């Protein structure tokens, strides 16, 4: 297999794996830019993955070909609502945000598995009939080299993810809301004196992050696993969190990091059919994305400093 063939093979898989990470990492950007640490991304993603599959299974008859897309919306709404729990704990009740996030992670998985057992009477759901389709982009896929790499057999959700990353950049850096969001995350007291409702902005940010993580989860389950079980998400949310940090809390940076992590995951999946890499036993290959993440954090990122007020509840009147 030539080098180009490997790229034709690897790049589409990388992008497919990156899409859920991009969405979830963008969710993380919203939340942490407003000053709320969101380690709960994993649990929110689990919820999204579960709702996506559930909706797809039950409403396939009604919506036909559109089912996976409407399932994304359903997952978005449910995870957005679920994120309110994290918001209430960490904004209103001044909880330790990491601990609250851990609780949400456990809760999300437990609720999803409980409902799976209740509805399907077994450890995982049935397989969905209609996954998110992949297609060749007309004209663009005919371009030599780049065409087959980027535009052949691409998932619609991947294009959506990149679009949303650009929109997020616009919202955070070019709109009044984005300015307030960043202000609240850097110096809530200053924002408060200028008449910004700190807690309201933070609530909105956490709910948006839940919604995006929900979409991410539903994309993952509807493209990769096509059913839901205890190991469906298995760390994708944490990987997205790492992507956000690696991207230095910037939407486009997070997207780039997510694509990089997507590549690392693709390596584990398609590795066995690539020369040289196939010499590594698959077990170790599965550990590769995580090793790469640590190396990335340790080696290339330099000092990562998040928003200044990240993780601190805002208490009016205290310095």
């Amino acid at each position: 297999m030539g080098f180009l063939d490997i790229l034709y093979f690897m790049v589409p898989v990388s992008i497919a794996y990156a899409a859920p990470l991009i969405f979830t990492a963008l969710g993380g950007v919203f939340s942490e830019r407003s000053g709320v640490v969101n380690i709960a991304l994993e649990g929110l993603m689990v919820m999204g993955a579960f709702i996506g599959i559930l909706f797809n299974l039950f409403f396939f008859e009604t919506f036909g070909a559109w089912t996976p897309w409407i399932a994304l919306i359903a997952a978005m709404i449910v995870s957005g609502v679920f994120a309110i729990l994290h918001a209430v704990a960490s904004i209103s009740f001044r909880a330790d945000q990491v601990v609250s996030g851990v609780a949400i992670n456990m809760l999300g998985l437990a609720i999803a598995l409980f409902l799976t057992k209740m509805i399907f009477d077994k450890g995982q759901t049935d397989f969905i009939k209609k996954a998110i389709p992949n297609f060749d982009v007309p004209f663009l896929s005919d371009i030599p080299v780049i065409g087959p790499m980027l535009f052949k057999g691409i998932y619609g959700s991947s294009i959506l993810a990149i679009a949303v990353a650009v929109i997020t950049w616009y919202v955070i850096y070019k709109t009044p809301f984005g300015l307030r969001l960043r202000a609240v995350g850097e110096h809530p007291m200053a924002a408060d004196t200028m008449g910004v409702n700190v807690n309201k902005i933070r609530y909105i940010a956490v709910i948006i992050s839940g919604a995006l993580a929900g979409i991410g989860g539903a994309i993952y389950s509807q493209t990769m696993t096509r059913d839901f079980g205890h190991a469906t998400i298995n760390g994708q949310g944490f990987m997205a969190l790492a992507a956000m940090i690696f991207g230095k809390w910037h939407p486009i940076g997070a997207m780039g990091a997510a694509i990089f992590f997507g590549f690392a995951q693709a390596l584990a999946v398609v590795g066995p059919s690539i020369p040289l890499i196939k010499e590594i036993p698959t077990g170790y290959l599965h550990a590769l994305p995580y090793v790469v993440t640590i190396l990335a954090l340790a080696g290339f990122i330099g000092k990562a400093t998040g928003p200044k007020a990240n993780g601190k509840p805002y208490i009016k009147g205290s310095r």
Partner: protein
Amino acid sequence: MSNRMINLLVPAIAVILGLLVGAIVMLVSGYDPVAGYIALWQGIFGDSYAIGETIRQITPYILAGLAVAFAFRTGLFNIGVEGQLIVGWFAAVYVGAAFDLPKVIHLPLSILAGAAAGALWAFLPGLLKAKMKIHEVIVTIMMNYIALHVVNALIKTWSGGGDKTDRILESASLRSEFLSSLTDYSRLHYGILVALLMVVVMWFILEKTTTGFELKAVGFNEHASEYAGMKIGKNIILSMVISGAFAGLAGAMEGLGTFGNMYTRGGFTGIGFDGIAVALLGANTPLGVIFGAVLFGSLKYGALNMPNAAQIPEEVVQIVIALVIFFVACGYAIRLFLTKISKKKEAK
């Protein structure tokens, strides 16, 4: 109401709220919560076999709780207990099966191997935190997944493609005829003694040694400690290593006591994550960890009885555990509520 009283009441209320919401979840899902909790109770205390198994389950929970609590006390969040437990389990089983030694040497050596492996697995996150200020939460989470996949691969290599390791030799086993026959042939083993000993060890390190004082000081205020001449980096690494050793011991208990070998796993054991709940509920004190471990270990084992006795999915207990953590995290609200009540009473 005194501050001390409130400190004790907050976790108690969190547990009650967790169980209450769990009951509501069961009710809404069309199950009978009363039957559910009776089945849970029976699963924990139903007969001497159940009691023995419950204590067995509590053993790794104590150690995992100590691991999380120790790190918390020194200002670190070791969310990687799960991974440290897995490598500890594997290392203990490996030493237990690969060497042939007299019991007085073999058993301690296997236990130590588990602790050392856990400590090593926690050393790297500590090092990265100390030298490069990379947040330990992210690194330990990644280390969890690396542990899972690497140990699975090692088991495959060791067993020549199979999915389980050799059994440990009798000389490395924590099994106890005596404890087992006492509890109707449950898998109860001597690990519980090791766990309780470690509770004392943690108390001793934190309260009676200079090292412990330094570790706590760094946790309280890094800058003040540095000004006082303490080495921040060294203390961070040491804290992670000790915490990891506790976690590795939890794995060793599973390997040398409960199972006697190790299987490849599709996912995590969950003990490491539940250890967070144990530590939080126990307010990160050694004694508190025992209470937390007893509660969550019992819940976890008793839950297994729920599908049979009441046709309720056992996952409902995991929901309860998650809710308890959530409510403990929301302690501020509970505290506020309690102070309001007590003020009203005083006014009367």
